[in-house]
């Protein structure tokens, strides 16, 4: 199958959240004039995990957007046919014109990445910058990443790139379209 993916190099992600804001700007998710902290929608978030006790510590950072699941529970749950997995790209898309605001997709999403616009009654989420990628551009989070921790392309090619750089796939975190990698030596 065709699957466009994002690869997250955890050796390089510093948790700076630049991608979160770049994504919001590009997709027009912010009402710059009025929005208050805690109420601004987002399509990507930063997570981290630290382990150990002082002074033997480690900490990893990574980003977590929609995984564009192989069999997307959100699409299965949607009764109005507003959610589909695009055959050409593998991107899971919500058609907000077909969305009736039932929010079943939000209940079923195992990653909690679907947002809901109460005022306009539709669900929305990361579309891997469909508008950009069909024109040969990278998703905006990949372009904006200040450490080049994110890369974009066909899943199988990203996996080859990771191997060439001596990176291992973190299988327990990786999913259909988001691949997490770390240096094999770490």
């Amino acid at each position: 199958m065709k699957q466009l993916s994002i690869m997250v190099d955890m050796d390089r992600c510093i948790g700076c959240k630049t991608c979160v804001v770049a994504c919001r700007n590009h997709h027009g998710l912010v009402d710059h004039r009025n929005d208050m902290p805690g109420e601004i929608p987002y399509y990507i978030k930063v997570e981290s995990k630290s382990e150990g006790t002082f002074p033997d510590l480690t900490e990893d950072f990574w980003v977590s957007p929609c995984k564009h699941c192989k069999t997307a529970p959100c699409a299965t749950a949607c009764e109005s046919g507003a959610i589909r997995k695009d055959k050409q790209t593998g991107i899971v898309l919500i058609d907000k014109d077909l969305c009736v605001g039932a929010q079943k997709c939000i209940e079923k999403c195992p990653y909690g990445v679907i947002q809901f616009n109460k005022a306009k009654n539709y669900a929305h989420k990361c579309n891997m910058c469909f508008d950009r990628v069909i024109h040969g551009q990278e998703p905006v989070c990949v372009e904006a990443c200040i450490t080049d921790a994110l890369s974009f392309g066909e899943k199988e090619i990203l996996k080859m790139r990771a191997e060439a750089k001596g990176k291992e796939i973190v299988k327990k975190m990786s999913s259909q379209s988001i691949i997490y990698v770390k240096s094999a030596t770490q």
Partner: protein
Amino acid sequence: MYEDGWIPTVCYQCKAECSILAHVKDGVVCEVKGNPRARGKMCVKGMAGITSLYSKERLTHPMKRVGERGEGKFEKISWDEAMEMMESKLRALHEKGEGHKFTYSMFPHSATDPKWRFMNAYGGFITTGLPHCDSAKIMSHLHAFGCFPNHHIAPIYYSVPKGGLMIMAGRHPFGCMDDASVARDILDAKERGAKLIVIDPIFRTEAAKADWWIPIKPGGDASFFLGVCNYLIENDLYNKDFCEKWVREGDMDNIKSYIADKTPEKMSAICEVPAADIIKLAKMVAEAPSACIDAFKSIMYGNAMDWGHVWSIFLVITGNLDNPGGQPLPELTPMAPVEPIPTGPDLKELGYHRTGPNREKFDNYNFIMQPTWYAPQAIKEGNLKIFFATECNPALSEMGSSVWRDAVTLKDDDGNYMLDFFMVSEILPSETMKWADLVLPDQTNYERWELLYMPWWYNYSHGAAICRPVVKPVGEARHTNNVIIDLGKKMFPEYFAFKDDVEYYDIELAGVGMSIQKLLDNGGMWNTGAAGFYKYKDSGKFGTPSGKIELEFQMYANIGKEWPDPAMPVEFKVDEEKFPFILVNIRSMFMNNTGAWSHNNAQLRDPVSGVDSNPIMINPLDAKKLNINDGDTVSMESSTATASSIVQLTEKIKPGCVGIIHGFGQTVGKVATQSGPWINDNDLIADAGSHLDQQDLCGGEAHVSTRVNIYK
């Protein structure tokens, strides 16, 4: 004048001022990103700049105070009235022959900033954060090898070779204070085999990516690196060829005598890093093709000049000057002067820290600018009468900030404010504004012209970038540069004969073969990226009086400071029992320190895209002794103030230290006040003017940290 498209300009969410592209659609900035012709990156603060631009809290018209200072009550006035207020106050002071009692706190974007020009014409002084952040590094490097590498002239990480050492000492470059590309460059260098070593009492993102994290006692950097230098010299592991050729005759013999007893074991007792680790680093340095030190927070303690001196010694004896992976040495390339040039007042004669009762003590101090932190003292002594503040927030950023706030409300026997007039120009509401007599709405970087050029470097080498208006200004906002140029035209027409800011920049740029139009035609910037290496070999000398590297600081012989003292900062040596913890105030990549813009920027205070609180970080070992649990509300008490906030237990902080983010404390603006909880670190720190016994009087550095006690 305005057009749609991706327009090259410059970010100003922090002082790094990265070259960017702004996407303008239908006259609105909708997206921004790093300019690929420059270094191609833009950080989270920069990305959130659009929110500052369009926030409904933007200051949109001039206002004058109607209540008492501190009440924050204002009424709208016209620009004409605002200009008249400033002109009449300024003329009155100037006519009394007291121009030196006017100070302007700001950050000059170029050394020829028109506001600075006005101050020189008037006979007043500018102050910047530079003396807080940089002075010890600048002065020690100037003394040792005669160049001016301020903290924006960090090591060039893209030049670090395989095996080179990148040493961060209390420095957090992933916060993008130099350029948004720095984090990428460091990680690229690491991928090609350079080593990242982080020396820091707190395990932060840089430490998480490091090959080696060395937790150190805050303020222990001078002793730590003296131990390293001792090992290198005692074991003949230093760069003898370099030192023989370039170090002043006699200095190597003298340093050997001085450093003989600064053994790793003795230094370990001060900095609390095991001697074996000091020796391990010395051996790594001896074998590495290059080593550089990037320090920022560590150079702000009371022993800053000692640490700056040791830092210089380390670079010299390892030969890491102006080499790939070492400390770059920028040369000076001034722009064309705008004739006639106003001559500024004599800082040593008239600067306000020189005019008080401690004048003689300050004669040891040798810095190029008025430090900000004696302003309250100067107000009390009648040496500061008019104060302007642009894009800065002294009500929060001054150490002992409550003393600053008290000082600006002091009245004389006649009931008049001791500080006669106070103007603030800002983009968004700031804490400082509450005390202002006049508030002027400034323009963001998306609405104004600004020339980015320093006679040393701008972002890694000689270059310039032009910030240009890409959209119409909001409300009646005017760029303060133009306001001050207009004042200059009225008061000192001979020095302000040029048409406007753009013509002023054009005259300056002609001196280096450029113009505004050429910069615009070239994609908004000019920078070859050529830093140059070993430039001292071309000239055959360094920029010191002797032309050689001067390790012994003979200019400080009168105060016995020819060589650095390994001791801990003086502020940490008092009241150790009463205040057992060292306060470490850290920088966050989401905040531009006390800058009002980031604290009132909804995206930067949002939990998903920024930081929404400022808890007190405590190691669980310390918390257990104090019977404190995660999330408890505790008091943090210093010798001068007490504040309270919630506790965050974390293994990431060295026992004996407590950490909070620097810069919080804003009580003005909906965004800043909604998020929390927080502590303003500067309220806890002793005011410089009233605690001179704790102040460094030889290096021009302030103390930005202090001892505290924690209790429920």
